[in-house]
């Protein structure tokens, strides 16, 4: 802080204090804006029906919404379905894109750049553009109204993303170990599984988590390719959650459901925060 203008020592200190205060006030406003709605959802989810319409900012520790939610077989089934679909599609995507990322990030061949651009273009496809074709393919495979339909169709959302991120992670790894292994006559696939993979633990964990979030949050395919309640995934189940009568919109229960399906993800995101930011911004900045 060596400003060109000369302030007296006191004035300079005061200016600095004001700036500091402004900075922290700004950060506080940003945090309140970003976090308050979720906080309000948590508060609302712990209120009984009567106190739901009071505006107390403190939780009232009434867990009846959670109890009725956990006794709701459709909702609990949806959590299981979502977990199966998100886990399977992320795992398949990670395996396929790890192989591809090795080729795109390490091997020198003419069309790698074109393939990367195509992958990027697919990732910005509007989903409706493949809807009718996907409907037909899912019918052929006899996946309609089954979790397999979503595991299959989510490859469209996840693969381009994981390929892009893993490619940029692999490019950042040092090459010395691989070159040594190559001279020793190690095969390429062995280099990938025995040399690179052990180094990529955190990268794969964070990419996998992002893939899982993509699948966990997806709505359009889940709404379209699943017909019956017992096969629904969480976002659609919440979207369609209604009260016992149409005059009684179960906001408390919907908030409880919202908190339940988001909390595990948020905890994981906070744990992997640094790597996730790296994954999200990879490619976008370098590409």
């Amino acid at each position, binding site marked *: 802080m060596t400003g*060109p203008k000369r302030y007296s020592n006191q004035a300079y200190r005061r200016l600095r204090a004001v700036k500091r205060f402004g900075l922290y006030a700004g950060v506080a406003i940003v945090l309140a804006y*970003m976090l308050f709605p979720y906080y309000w959802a948590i508060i609302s989810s712990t209120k009984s029906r009567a106190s739901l319409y009071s505006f107390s900012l403190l939780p009232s520790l009434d867990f009846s919404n959670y109890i009725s939610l956990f006794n709701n077989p459709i909702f609990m089934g949806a959590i299981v379905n979502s977990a199966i679909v998100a886990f399977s599609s992320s795992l398949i995507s990670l395996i396929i894109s790890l192989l591809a990322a090795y080729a795109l990030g390490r*091997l020198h061949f003419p069309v790698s750049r074109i393939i990367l651009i195509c*992958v990027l273009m697919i990732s910005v496809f*509007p989903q409706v553009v493949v809807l*009718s074709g996907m409907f037909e393919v899912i019918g052929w495979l006899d996946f309609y109204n089954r979790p397999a339909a979503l595991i299959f169709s989510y*490859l469209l959302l996840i693969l381009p993303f994981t390929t892009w991120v893993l490619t940029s992670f692999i490019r950042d790894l040092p090459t010395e170990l691989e070159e040594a292994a190559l001279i020793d006559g190690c095969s390429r696939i062995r280099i990938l599984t025995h040399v690179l993979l052990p180094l990529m633990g955190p990268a794969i964990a964070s990419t996998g988590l992002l893939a899982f979030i993509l699948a966990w*949050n997806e709505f359009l395919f889940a709404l379209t390719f699943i017909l019956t309640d017992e096969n629904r995934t969480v976002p659609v189940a919440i979207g369609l959650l209604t009260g016992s009568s149409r005059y009684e919109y179960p906001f408390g229960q919907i908030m409880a459901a919202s908190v339940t399906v988001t909390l595990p993800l948020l905890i994981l995101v906070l744990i992997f925060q640094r790597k996730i930011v790296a994954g999200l911004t990879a490619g976008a900045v370098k590409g």
Partner: protein
Amino acid sequence: MQNRETRIAWYFLLPLLVALAAVALWPLGRNIYFSFTNAFLDNPTDYSFVGLENFATVIEDPVFWGAVKNTMIFTLVSVTLETLLGLAVALLLHRAFAGRGLVRAAILVPWAMPMVVSAKIWEWMFNDQFGLINKALIWLGFLDKGIAWTADPSLILGTIIFIDVWVTTPFMVLLILAGLQLIPEEIYEAAEVSGVPAWKRLWSITLPLAAPAIGVAVLFRTLDALRMFDLSYVIAANSENAMTMSIYARDQLIGFQDLGVGSAASTWVFLIVGLVAILIVSVLRLDRNTT
């Protein structure tokens, strides 16, 4: 040697190429193909070709143009607001302060939630009778009685934009922050020593140097906004005042079971999004060449 490496590369790429062909290229091709037929969803094998009739049906439908207009307004306004807000927050969080890492993690919260959940939380806060927002506005004296934010036809698109800005600003902040971190600190020190005022440092150092990162972020967000489906679907159901292009196309396809017209609508969406993508990319290129 080079040939061998190329061959190995293709082996490694094969699963990806097969998978993308199955979930992207083939369905896209079939979608365009169905656009020229009169197929229906309940019996998709029985159809004949009708030429461009479906494309004409779609562009003669005022509901389609309403959806295009909504989508364009939504995209333009929300991406503009997100970029400005994202830039402001990124500049703030770029400064050094205690707990910066934690704050950066905390702003990921809206982004990591399912869109449906965000929509439901805001729908609750915007509720006309029991919502916190109306309550607060009445308490502050801005309103006499609650407003139906998600039901009033003239407000619904604005409400949806407001929610979208909340959901996607974190993504903007992250991308812009990453761009800001690439700017070397020495430039600022030099500018400060030679007496360049703060606003001018922002205008002639920060913004031009962060421009590529901002450009990429705007491109991604624009293409994402153009395909928006879930937020409008959950908040507005079938209200034509907030219907997006994606909702229109799905409606034709699934709601009316009309595979031909639905596919033609999707193909229009594809063309429109492609056109916008080309426009933005060429603007970004132009920018890069002049600087």
